[in-house]
Structure formats: C-alpha cells, structure tokens
C-alpha cells in the first residue's frame, strides 16, 4: 500500500525519507513541488496528486509536509489517516513534531516507522504498544542506557499486541492511582453582520489521563446523555453497552488518550457564550474600526484567554487602535490584526477602536473582513453535558477520580 514516505520542510527540502518497498527516487517529489508552486498557500496543496507512475498523498501539519507515495489503488483516507497517526505518534514521543525534533531523534523515528508499517500495511499504531516496543527518548533513560548498556528497544512482544485489549499495556503499576477526565467543548459558529447566529454547533471531546494499576474496567455515565448527538469512540469503548444502556464501559489505555468525541448539532439551540459588536467602515484613504466584546449566557463563569484575530483586506496599510485592555498588533505583511484581550471583566467590557489607513489610489475594499474569536471558559460545559458517575471494577484499590469541564471557542467567526 504505502510505498515510501518523504518528509518535507516549508522551504522544500526533503529532510527524511523512508522506503518500505523498493526505493523510489526522490525526484518523484518534483510533482509535489510543482503542485505546491501552483497554489498560493500551503493549505491549498491538493492532498492527492496523480503522477504518471505513482500517486502522492500528502498531509500538511505544523509546517511540515508528509508525502506518502503509493503505487496502486488504496483508499486515500487510509493513507491520510495513517500519516496523521505517524505525526501524532511523533508528537507524543518527542513532545512536539517539528523538523528539529525529527532530525534529532532520527533513529527513534526510523525504528518507529519500521514498527508502524510492514511493507506498506500498518502493523502497530497503538501508542501503548509502540511505547513498549520502543521507549520514548528522555534524558533519564539516555543516562541509564549509557551506564547499563540497555537499549531503547524491547526484545519481547508487547502483551497488548496479542490480547483482546491491544491498546493497554500489561503490568501497569502506580503508587497513586488516579484518573482525570477533561470534558472539552468547542463552540463552532458563524455570526452574521446583524449579530444573529447563522450556524452553531458544539464539538465535544473527553480527554483522559488515566494512571491506574492493573486492568481496571471503568464505567462512565452521563446525567443527560440525550444531548450527545453523534459520538465516536476510542476502540476501547464497548459499543454494545452504549447502544443498550448509554453507558461508557471501557478498559482504558494507559496514559493520555481521547475517550470519545461528540457532536451537538445545529438543530438544538446552542447558547453562544459571548457577543461581539464589530464595526468597520472605509472612506477614500482611511477607515474606522471599532469592536467591543461582552459575555452572554456564561452561567456566571469568567471568559478568559480571549484573543481576537482578523485578516484585513489587502488595501489596508496600517491600523492605529487603542484598546481598553490587553494588547493589539497588526502585521502589515500578512494584514492580520491580533488583539489579545485576556479576561473579560463584566463590569468593564473591553473594546478597541481607532483608525485604519488604506493604500492611496486603490479603491476601498468592498468586502469586510471576518473576525475570529478565541476564548475559554473553565468549569463550564456549555451544552450542559455532565458526567454522572464513574465506577471502577476489576481492581481492588480506590482510585482518585477527577472530571473537569472546559468550554472553548472552536471555529468561532463573526462576519462584519
């Protein structure tokens, strides 16, 4: 299936290559560069490129291109999903997946790629299994290895690979048994000029950090499971239980993982936690910009980490603004306005206003820019989803359990 993999940095250097079958010359990437040159931004590079003898399937993440070469018919999503899995694995191993970290740990990278794919077909992609086969690099281990001469590579098959819970490694032991669950909800919405909601939905996911000894069997139930419209699960969740009882029953992987994602559709009424009042107007060579923001339906919780960004039309030369709080910056090359508001104080609502200078001679822009908003509200799940209880079976000890709720802005856009 997957023949070769090339990793390419933004300046177009192939800094790593790996072949699972016969070697394919890196000249095949020329087709990719050609396609890259045709489009204005990296995001627009088509993910599937057809060349006379091969097909190039690429992903673009964190300033890096992973280009997979395939020779035959294969579901493109198969390859794309796998490339993302590689990227995620690297991020998990090295903390961050950048050109520097990959180059620094090239041996581990190679060992990982070797384990993850066998002649183009995925072999072990479960991070618990991989981590048992190849230990993630860290300083302590490096010291130990030099002293004892032991290596990063395991010589026995991870038990998980064979058991019916391949995602969990065996023999886990912790002195403090704890399980944390973060219910994170992201509000996606489009708000039009008049302030009415064009479209809104909530994307939620539960991130877990489970450090429990042995083989715990967890059960999680929700106060109001009806809210969850469309769910997708980590493979550990028993689907039958969910179907019949609406209870999440699972043997968790060890460490961090995403238990489920859910979606609360546009149909149900979604509360938008903040409101934005933007105003922009252009005259011949100048314009005025004004924007204020305030909380709305936050159940008394604080709205924090508010950042407002907007891509201005290309005629805009500069912006001179005065915010009531926070700092703003305008990037005259990318034409991006960024206003880091911080926390919203309901007594003194933040606002920003000032003048816009336009390119002289050029006609004033006809379209108004869109405003992107980021914020987070802790201890609140805006949809009202609530974990009812969490029980553990199968092990004797009493774990510490914690659930946290966070609401964030997802793709929160305001048209003006």
């Amino acid at each position: 299936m997957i023949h070769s993999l090339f990793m390419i940095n933004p300046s177009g250097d192939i800094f790593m290559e790996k072949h699972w079958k016969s070697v394919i010359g890196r000249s095949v990437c020329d087709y990719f560069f050609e396609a890259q040159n045709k489009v204005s931004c990296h995001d627009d590079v088509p993910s599937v490129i057809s060349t006379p003898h091969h097909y190039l399937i690429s992903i673009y993440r964190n300033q890096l291109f992973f280009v997979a070469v395939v020779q035959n018919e294969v579901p493109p999503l198969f390859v794309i999903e796998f490339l993302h899995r590689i990227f995620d694995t690297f991020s998990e191993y090295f903390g961050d997946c950048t050109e520097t970290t990959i180059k620094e740990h090239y041996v581990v990278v190679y060992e990982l790629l070797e384990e993850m794919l066998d002649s183009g077909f995925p072999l072990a992609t479960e991070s618990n299994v991989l981590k048992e086969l190849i230990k993630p690099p860290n300083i302590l281990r490096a010291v130990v290895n030099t002293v004892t001469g032991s290596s990063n590579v395991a010589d026995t098959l991870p038990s998980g690979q064979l058991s019916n819970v391949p995602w969990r490694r065996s023999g886990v032991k912790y002195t403090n048994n704890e399980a944390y669950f973060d219910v994170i909800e992201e509000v996606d919405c489009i708000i039009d000029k008049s302030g009415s909601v064009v479209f809104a939905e909530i994307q939620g996911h539960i991130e877990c950090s489970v450090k429990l000894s042995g083989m715990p069997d967890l059960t999680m139930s929700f106060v109001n499971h009806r809210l969850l419209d469309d769910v997708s699960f980590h493979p550990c969740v028993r689907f039958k239980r969910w179907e019949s009882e609406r209870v999440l029953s699972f043997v968790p992987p060890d460490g961090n993982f995403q238990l489920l994602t859910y979606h609360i559709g546009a149909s149900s009424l979604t509360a938008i936690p903040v409101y934005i009042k933007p105003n922009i107007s252009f005259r011949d060579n100048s314009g005025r910009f004004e924007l204020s923001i305030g909380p709305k339906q936050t159940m008394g919780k604080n709205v924090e980490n508010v950042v407002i960004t907007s891509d201005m039309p290309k005629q805009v030369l500069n912006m001179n603004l005065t915010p009531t709080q926070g700092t703003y910056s305008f990037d005259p090359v990318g034409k991006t306005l960024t206003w880091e508001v911080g926390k919203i104080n309901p007594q003194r609502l933040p606002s920003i206003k000032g003048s816009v200078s336009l390119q002289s001679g050029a006609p004033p822009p006809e379209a108004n820019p869109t405003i992107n908003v980021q914020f987070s509200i802790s201890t609140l799940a805006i949809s009202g989803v609530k974990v009812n209880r969490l029980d553990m079976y199968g092990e004797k000890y009493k774990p510490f359990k914690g659930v946290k709720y966070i609401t964030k802005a997802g793709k929160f856009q305001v048209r003006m």
Partner: protein
Amino acid sequence: MNRENLKMCFHLASENSSITTCHGKMADRYEPVLSMRDYENLSTMAHHSQAEQRSYANEKTPSTGPMEPDVASDPASGGFFAADYKKHEDLKSMLDGSKDNLKLEAMKRIIGMIAKGKDASDLFAAVVKNVVSKNIEVKKLVYVYLVRYAEEQQDLALLSISTFQKGLKDPNQLIRASALRVLSSIRVPMIVPIMMLAIKESVNDMSPYVRKTAAHAIPKLYSLDPEQKDQLIEVIEKLLADKTTLVAGSVVNAFEEVCPDRIDLIHKNFRKLCNLLIDVEEWGQIVIINMLTRYSRTQFLDPNKADMIQEEQEKSFYGSESDKDDDEDDEEKEKEPVKKPYVMDADHRLLLRSVKPLLQSRNSAVVMAVAQMYHHLAPKNEVGMIAKPLVRLLRSHREVQSVVLSNVATMSAKRRGMFEPFLKSFFVRSSDPTHIRLLKLEILTNIAGETSIATILRELQTYVTSSDKDFVAATIQAIGRCASNISEVTDSCMNGLMGLMSNRDEAVVAESVVVIKKLLQMNPTEHKEIIRHMAKLADAITVPMARASILWLIGEYSDRVPKIAPDVLRKMAKDFTNEEDIVKLQILNLGAKLYLTNSKQTKLLFQYVLNLAKYDQNYDIRDRARFLRQLIFPGEKGGALSKHAKKIFLAPKPAPVLESVFKDRDQFQLGSLSHIINARASGYIELPDFPEVMPDPTVRNVEEIHAWASNDKLSSKKKPVRKSKSFYSSSSSEAEELSGSASSDESGSGDGSGSSTSESDSDGTSSSSEEESSSSSESSSSESDSSSDDSSDKESDSDSDVPAKPVKKATPKATPTKTKGSKKDAGKDGQSNMQLLNFDDIGPPVQASGAGLGGGILTPALATDLQGLSISDKSPGTTVSSAMFTPTQTYELLNRMNSQGLAATYRFTRNVCIYSATMVSVELNFTNSSDAVIQTIKLGESKLSSGMKLHEFPEVTNLGVGKSVSVTLGIDYGDTTQPANFEICTESRKFSVSIKAPVGELLQPISISEREFQSEQSKLIGMNENSDKVSIPDAINNEKAIISRVAEVANVQIVPASDPEHLTYRFAAKTLSTGSLVLLTVGKGKITTNCEKMVIGSMLVKDIKKSLLKV
C-alpha cells in the same frame, strides 16, 4: 514439483559458489581492517559453503553448468570495495570492533545517512556481519539497513539469511516474527523458495502475531515472484480460515493484493469476517470492508430494485432529473412486475448490521469505508444514517475534509435529501482553503431544494463579496445552477446576477454574464430588458468570454432587440482586429445571423467583417469566414445549402444543462483513490453490478465445529452427515484436500519435513488405539486422494468414507482450543501415520526430495534451521514425530500379595506427556483384587533425586472390587537413569515404589534428514560417541526386523536413508528433559550412538545390542 525444486537448488548452489569467491575477495581486502577473529569467521563461512557444494556435487551429479556464467559476472563480487574503500573507514572499524556501544553508534550514523537519502551501500559487508549481534537495537538497525540495500547487494545479502532462519525457530515470538518480516522484506529473487518455506511454516505458528507477519509476507513474496501465485493462494486460503482478529485484516490485504478475483475463497469465511469485524484493528477493518463491498456486489441482489416505483414518484416530485436516468428506470420497471417481492438475504443483512457500529470509529477511513458500503449496498431508506458520521468527519484535518467532501459531493448529486438536514455544516468559513470552499459550494448546490434554497442563496450572497476571486466565480456559477434547477428562484437569482454585473471586479461581471447567458437560453422570452442591458455592457466588458457570450445572446435573440443589434455589430466590426479569437468567431456568427434576419441594414457590415476575417492570422477564423461566405453568399454553382441557411443558423437551440461536475464520478467506488483523482488508478477494481439472479447463498454455509462437544462425540459426529449430506461431504472433502495438499507440498518442497512436522498424538490419554488406527487409515486415504488429483472422484470418495470421516472430525473436537491448528494437525497426524504404514517399503520419493534439497538450496545449517523451526516450539503438539512403536510391555509396580489386593502395573506409552513436554508419560494401571472397595488412591510423598520432577495423577476416589483403572503419571527424569521413588497411598496404607525408566524411554523421536544427521553426527564425536560391535543374527538382518527391534527398546525415529544398499540404519531422537540430540546408527556389525549425555549413549548401545541379539 520436484523438478522445479531441483532447478531452484541448482540455481542457489551456483550462487553459493559466487558467494564463496566473493568471500575470498572480501577477506583479502579486509585483512588490514578486520580483527583476526573476524577473518577466521569469514573464512570458515567460505569453507562451509565450499564443502557444502562439494557434498552436493557428490550426491547429485547432474550438471549445474548453465547457470554459472551469468552469476559470476555479478558486479558486487568484483572490484566493488576498491572504489569506496577509504570512504567510511571509521564507521567500518567501529562496526568491526567488539564494543556494542560503538557498533550502535556506527549503525545510528548509517541510519542517519539512509534517512537523508545518502548512499551507504558500500558499508554493506561491514554491516551485514552484525546481523548476529546480541544487542537488540543494533540488530534492529542492521535489519533496517539490510532491507534497504539487500536489493542492490544480493550476493552479500544471502550471508544474512541463515541468521533469519535461525530466528524463525526462536522461542520468542517477537524474534520469530521479526525474522520472518526481514526475511520476506529482502528483495532477493534467489531466496524465493526459502521465503515460501518460511511463510508456509509460519502460517502454522502458535502465535497469531507470527501468523499475521506471515500474512504480511505474502504480498511481498508475490511482488518479488508472481510465479508463486498458486502456492500463495493456498497459503491465503489457509490463513483466511484463521479465527483470530489479529490475522484477519492482514490476510484480507494479502488476498486483495494477490488474488482479488478469487471470491470463492471468501464464501466460507464471509460470516466469520462479519462477526470478527468489530474487533479487528482499524486498518484491517478498512480493507475487509472494501473487500466485502465488492464481494457483496457479486453475491446479493440489488436491494433498491423493489423501491423503483416509489422512487419514480419522488423523482417526478422534484421534477428535474435527467432523461437518461428515467430511461434506466423505465427499463428496470419493466422487469419489475415479473420479480417476486424482494427479501434481503440474511447474509447481506448480517454484513450491514455488523459494519454499522463502525460508523462510530475514531478513524475517518473506517467511517468512510462503512459509508461507501452503505452507499453501494444498502437499501435506500437506510443509507441516510451515514450522513451524520460523514458530517462529523468535517471537523477533522483539512486533508480528511477534502476527501470526505468530494465523496459527499458525489453522494449528494445522487441522493439530495440525505444531506439536507446538515446543510449548515457545509457553510463556508473564512478559514477554509480554496479547494475546500469549492467543494462545499458544490455540495450546497447539489442539495439545494425548494425548502432550503432561500437559506442557501442568502449564504451564497455573502460569499460573493469574498476577496478570493476563484471562490466568487464558483459562487456565481453555483447561483446559476440553483436558478436553473429550481424554477421558483430563477427570477430572483437573475436579479441578483444582474446586480453583480455592475460589480467593480471584472471577473465577477464576466462570470455573471456567462451564467446569465445560460439562464436566458432556457427562458428567453421574458428577459428583453436583460438582453438590452447586456448589449450596453458590451462596450465596457473586456473579458473575452463575457463579450463572446453577450454577442452570441444578441445574435440569437436579435428579433427581441432589432434596433440595438445592428448597432452592436457596427461597433464590433470597427474593433474587429483587436478582439480575441473567441470574440471574433462570435462577431462572425452575429453578422451571419443579423444578415439573415435583417439583411438590409447589415449586409455591408457583414461583408466588411468577412473580408477582415479572410486575412486573419487564425485559420479557424479564416475557415469560418470562408464557410459563412459560401453559405450565405453562394456563387453560381453552389447554393443548395444556402436555401436552408436560416434554418441552420436560427434553429432553436437546447438550453444547456447545468449539472454537477461530480455526477460522472459515481462510476468509481466511493472512497477510492480513483474516485478522488477521477481517473482509473492502477490496480483499481471495478465495482461489479448487482447480479440479476441471486447466486447460491448456501456457499456461505459453514459447518459449525462444536468445540466443546467432545463428550458426546458419537452423537455429534453422526448428525451432520445425516442432515445435509451433500453439503457436508463436499465441504469436508475440501478440507481434506487442503490438508492433504498442504502436507504433500511439504514433503514435496523438500527438507524431509514430511516427517519433521508430524506430531505424536497429543490427545494423550483420551485417544484410544482404535481411534488412532482408524484416523490413520482415514488420513492415508486422504493422502492418496490428493496425490491422485481428486477433482473427479471427490464426491464419491468422501461418500464412501463416511464411517471414517467422523473420526477425523472428532480430532478437532478433542483439542478444543485451536480448531484451525488441530485441523492441520489432523493432516499431519495422518501423514506421520501414513509413513508408519509405508515403512515396509521405505518411500523413495520422500527420500529423494529430501536429498535433493539438502544437496541444493540449503546448507546443512539452513536445513536444520528450517526444521528446527518446529522443534524449538515449546508446544509438544507440533514438534516431534510420533512414536514408531508403542510398547506393550508392562512392569509390575505393586504386587497384590504385598499390598492387600491392590495391584499396580505401569507401562511407558511413548505419548507426549500431557503435563509437560519434558516428562515421560507413564501409564499406571491399578487393579483391585481384594474383596473390599479401595478408597482414594493417590500419590504420596516422593523422594526424587535432584533435577527430577513428578506430576501426580488425578486421585482415584473409589476402586470397586475386581475393577481396574488407568491413570497417567508424568515423570521428568532429568535425563538421568535414576529411578523415581515415591509413595502410593490408599486410604489406609502407603506403599513405597520406584519406577526406573529404560534409557530408551527417556527419548523423544525427532525426524531429520540424512544430511542433517551426518552433520550433527560430525559434531558429536570423541567423548560423545559410543559404539559396540554386534553380529546381527541373519534371521533379523533385514530392514524391517532391525527397525522394529530398535523401536522396541528406544523411542526413536528412523532417518530416511539415501541409499538403502548400505545396510546402515540411522535413528534420531532427543532426550526429553534437555532436548539433546541422540543419534543412533546400526549396521555393518556395529552400533553407534552419538549423544552429549554419555551415560545415555552407552546404555542405549547396551540395550539395543541386547535387543538385537535376543532370539
């Protein structure tokens, strides 16, 4: 078969010679760098292969000539190292050193070179030596290197093969698996036979992980040598029957790559795959679902045919489907009344039901696979549920989004209603990249209906102001399509588009003109104003396509603007030379049309234009002008057509159909690469149409094997035969064929494994001798079956065999844990038994192939490696061969006189002990000859010498008067001849007893080839050799008698001899406890044993001598 093998042997043998020469050279060059020790290693290796070749030449004289020349000229063997000798000297010296950390460092640097794409092939020789490194990380990196460069350095790569073969028999499954992985990844055509063997062995491995690796190896071997297809298909067939989830995905992938057309292999496994699907790892799920989609298209009926009539109504409701579709439907409708009402096949339903939960997978590719399966297979009313999961995927990475959106676009072109509830999810965000925006627009247009159009149009309006011009243009086209599809909004769309014509941006204006033109064409009568307005615009617009569109419109509808049209022509004629080609053509057309309707005003103008065009640079325009002139101003001769000029030019033209560009993509399977690139990708397999008539659904019936039904064997084994005889017999004969062919393969492909893989009866206590004999006769029949190409008499054969068959079935029942394995075992069982039967005339075929192999492909070490595969396996079931002889002699343990009526005897069963592989299995027989019931007979205290172990027998609670009972005791003698002392207790008494095993019972027979025997023997000389002279009485000096005499005393296996004339008989066994080899040679008046355990060796000689001399 044999011939082919031999051929390959020659090939390899000659390759070996080239390795040897290469060694010589390598050694020369290496002298300064290598340590002395390494040098010696290399030279011994060289000697080895030379010796090997000599011995081969001795045994098989046929010419090896023709192959040699082209091998000798291999560039790798000559002069290669000279060039780059100095280049990586430091790395080489690090690799040649003895320090692991230096080696690791060097390997890391080399991997770094590979990763950067630099050439590191000149280090091959230095690296490949480290393939035997103890350090696992070094080893792994060497593997990486090897796989990368083996193709370029085929000869040197062969040096590493034996290491992998050794790895294949490692007790650690990870090492077995990785050895197989690397071995199969080395793309050296020479080792194809070795790979084939390794795959075949691994398919029967205990560890599912190794079997999975074997499944992965299949496509690799196939790509290396497509000739192996038939054999590989057999392997695939075997693996498809595997019941573990770990293997399922990989083997289906192999199936897809090797033989996607053999859907007949799937029938039997269809239901199993459906049931396993949810537990298979995600990547396997994708492959399986895609395969099953194709499979189902050939096996099930179209579930939507019955709905056609209803669909018809729906269509008329929307009222805008293309004619073509209707035609198709009509056809189908005609067939409809004849058909019975459609009932979905149970298997079809099972499939849909088992994939449904996977819509909740976190893996987008799995969700997509399920979605496409529903799209292609599910009844209309069920397809809708895939919409929601697909919409969920839109939150994922942009690459996923773009693939999902293109698939949604195709689906929405066909099933508009499905995505309408999710309309708003397709609204464009300012952060979307352009290609995502275009796809979303496409979908929005596809799903626009009467109810949603208002929302969509409002949304489209905001897009028009975007700064992304491509997107704006696409938006305008989308508006046009909405307007043409939904008549209610045509007017308002038209107004909107008119508004856009005053836009500052030219591209926007041009696009709207083009779209308006198309719209007007559909309904020209009402739009005089618009045409007039556009005529005015003709002066301002400079985009050629837009100008051309305006001119065409005016020409076409000149009767509606009779005053303006000639004036437009006048303006255009004035500027003719400066126009673009496309505009010039339209000016000519306009002129012609005006001349025909209004010749008075435009004749001169038109002639002027024609004259200009006559001298145009573009031949297309010149041609057009000439054509028009002839048509409209005919000369003296012509004129036949000119009468019809008006009809030709002013014929009513059909309005263009504005439809989705994704409409034709439906021809490709959704989710496929071909679908995304909208072209046939290599290796794409067309999704077949549903069959008209339902194929036989019973092919998918699988006989249930009742794993736990061993208790009522008798009843269960009879029943199936009665119930569905024809089916049962055919399926079992198929299974038989499988096992038969597999075993014949093994013996055919050499290495004498025919006997090595056979097993002793693992059933242990439960198998009665009667069952054994019947199963042996049964499997011998299966053997003859397969050898005499049984296609013709399969049916009759199996029918006649009915009484024997159930026993075969019973064997899997007796070992409930691994049905698959035991099925295979049954085959092996049969084979070994067959050999037993055949011993009367020691089979020349077996022997020939064994010798052929030993002489050719494999060095002795290799051959043992391959065989050792199974030996090292800890499980008793598959390793050793079964006993040649079951002794009946019993020894007395307790005399009834001394023990108050409890008599006990014991005998050695020579079965593999059920408690542990290292134990001797002893059958104790208690008889109660007292006049009272004896209670609780059990094992008491045992006084064992060190190294011995004893496994007690299950307690006998109650032994009635005159009754007797047998129990099995396991004793590990630790390879000593010490007796085992222990107590047997009854309720009232204790008796001290001791069991001393004759040395021959401490052995376990193994089967090896003669060559291995000799090579092993040569290692066990000196102290390890014991021999004694014996003059065998003439009465028994024949093969049969000697073998039986030896077998009586010792549990050994005969080694097939290459030339029976020598009158030397070789036997092989290993000690139970430590597994050391025991080699026994009888003949020429001499008995010789070779064994590390000297005591055992010498005692064995004595025992055998005694047995041979006894009268």
